[in-house]
């Protein structure tokens, strides 16, 4: 019954791709454009070509959770997006756990249920799209971990032991089988951070969900999301975390933008900036600050940048 739970990065990505399709994320490209920019810069430094396509739509993650109402819309949207990638004969790389989770799950459903595949394809056939299941779906964190040593060699601004807490998010490790790390106690982000010269901190609520879950952050902000985030930030503050990294723009929104509200509600200051792991890697690899888009962050990065001997520019 059991497939391998954990596989080596070389098994997940046997070859480093020369060219890949970078899947745009609604939140990652619009809310925090620095994330998309950082991913592209890092790929450039590693010598990998990133292809994008304006025809792509949102992964329909928001719609998927609406799928109680109209699941066929999500299936069609996914099939269409993936068929765009297939026309280019590339693999799909996302930089959002949400996109990754939804694309993988919907692709899996379509490829294991012929009825759904036919239904999705019949809806998009008019416009000349057809999904065949050829493209493989990855998250850029797969790539960063696979190329950890290459990244370590290209570090230009070492992180000087900056105390960094990670937030792995839920929808990547929740795949359970054939993933890079143990969902019970993941450490691969921490390894990347160490390779860049930072000091990973295992704060107590490291693995707690951010609570945003595409919509709950909006509909239940005060009831469930803020208490959840408060627990998380309290334990991060107790562990003297200076920076938190995420791999999901949704989580980033939750943790970055809610901090002022948390301060007001619970009477405690946190001031822990939250950025994407790709932005951190780009920072260490010497990408110029304007390209990292830190101006989009609610919680200022001034403290961290000063510690690294940099000025926040924009």
């Amino acid at each position, binding site marked *: 019954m059991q497939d391998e739970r954990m596989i080596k990065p070389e098994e997940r990505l046997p070859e480093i791709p020369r060219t890949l399709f970078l899947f745009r994320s609604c939140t990652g490209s619009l809310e925090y454009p620095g994330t998309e920019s950082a991913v592209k810069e890092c790929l450039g430094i590693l010598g990998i070509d990133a292809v994008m396509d304006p025809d792509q739509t949102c992964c329909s993650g928001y719609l998927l959770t609406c799928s109680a109402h109209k699941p066929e819309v999500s299936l069609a949207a996914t099939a269409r997006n993936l068929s765009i990638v297939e026309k280019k004969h590339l693999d799909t790389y996302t930089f959002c756990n949400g996109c990754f989770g939804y694309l993988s799950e919907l692709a899996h459903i379509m490829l294991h249920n012929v009825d759904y595949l036919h239904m999705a394809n019949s809806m998009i056939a008019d416009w000349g799209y057809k999904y065949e299941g050829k493209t493989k779906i990855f998250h850029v964190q797969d790539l960063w971990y696979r190329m950890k040593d290459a990244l370590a060699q290209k570090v230009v601004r070492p992180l000087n032991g900056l105390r960094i807490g990670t937030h792995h998010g839920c929808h990547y*490790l*929740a795949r359970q089988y054939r993933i890079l790390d143990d969902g019970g106690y993941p450490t691969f982000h921490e390894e990347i951070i160490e390779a860049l010269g930072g000091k990973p901190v295992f704060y107590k609520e490291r693995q707690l969900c951010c609570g945003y879950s595409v919509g*709950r952050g909006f509909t239940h902000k005060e009831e469930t999301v803020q208490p959840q985030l408060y627990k998380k930030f309290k334990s991060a503050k107790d562990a003297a975390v200076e920076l938190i990294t995420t791999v999901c723009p949704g989580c980033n929104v939750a943790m970055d933008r809610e901090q002022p509200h948390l301060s007001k509600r619970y009477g405690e200051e946190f001031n822990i900036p939250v950025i994407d792991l790709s932005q951190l890697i780009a920072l260490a690899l010497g990408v110029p600050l304007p390209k990292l888009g830190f101006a989009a962050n609610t919680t200022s990065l001034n403290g961290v940048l000063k510690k690294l001997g940099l000025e926040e520019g924009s």
Partner: protein
Amino acid sequence: MGPDFYIPMRLNEVDDSLQKEIKENLGVDLEMCLECGKCSGGCSNGQSFDYTPRKIVQLVKFNDEETLLSMDALWICLSCQLCLDRCPSGIDLPRLLDYLRAKAYRKGLRASRPQVQLFYELMLSSVRKIGRVSEFPVILQFNWKTGQYLKDAHLGLTMFLKGKLSFLSPHVKEKEKVRRLFNGSPVESRGNNR
């Protein structure tokens, strides 16, 4: 006037149709549940649930569709997948809850606090009208309909003055094509979905 006190459930009169339905349509076999509680123990939002994950499985076994489709937990579940990851029997609770949400919608049942359903409906109706989600009208309608009239008002003003908020969103060029998606065949859950 019948008895006004709780009469114990007679298990031999409880039929297992819901359990069977879930097994056939989703491939989730609740008899594999060891009732160990590892799901509830790790549930991210468990302290806010009115019924913890393990209790939800038990409710299915009691065929208590009424509670299942109107409970708060159904809508505030975060889909973080920790319950599935930790379950020693691999019971797909997130999928079960997705299925129940779809069922609740089809039956027109509203949760006692319907924010989540309202949110979905507003987003989808925006997509149907103009082919994409236009945040401003969605948020405005949401706050209005949930009685939080002035929520985010000053934030909205700031954003508008900075040019980050537009009242009118450009429509998608071929929005009739998107609309057609909404007329697609209703999803029939057939066969094993794994």
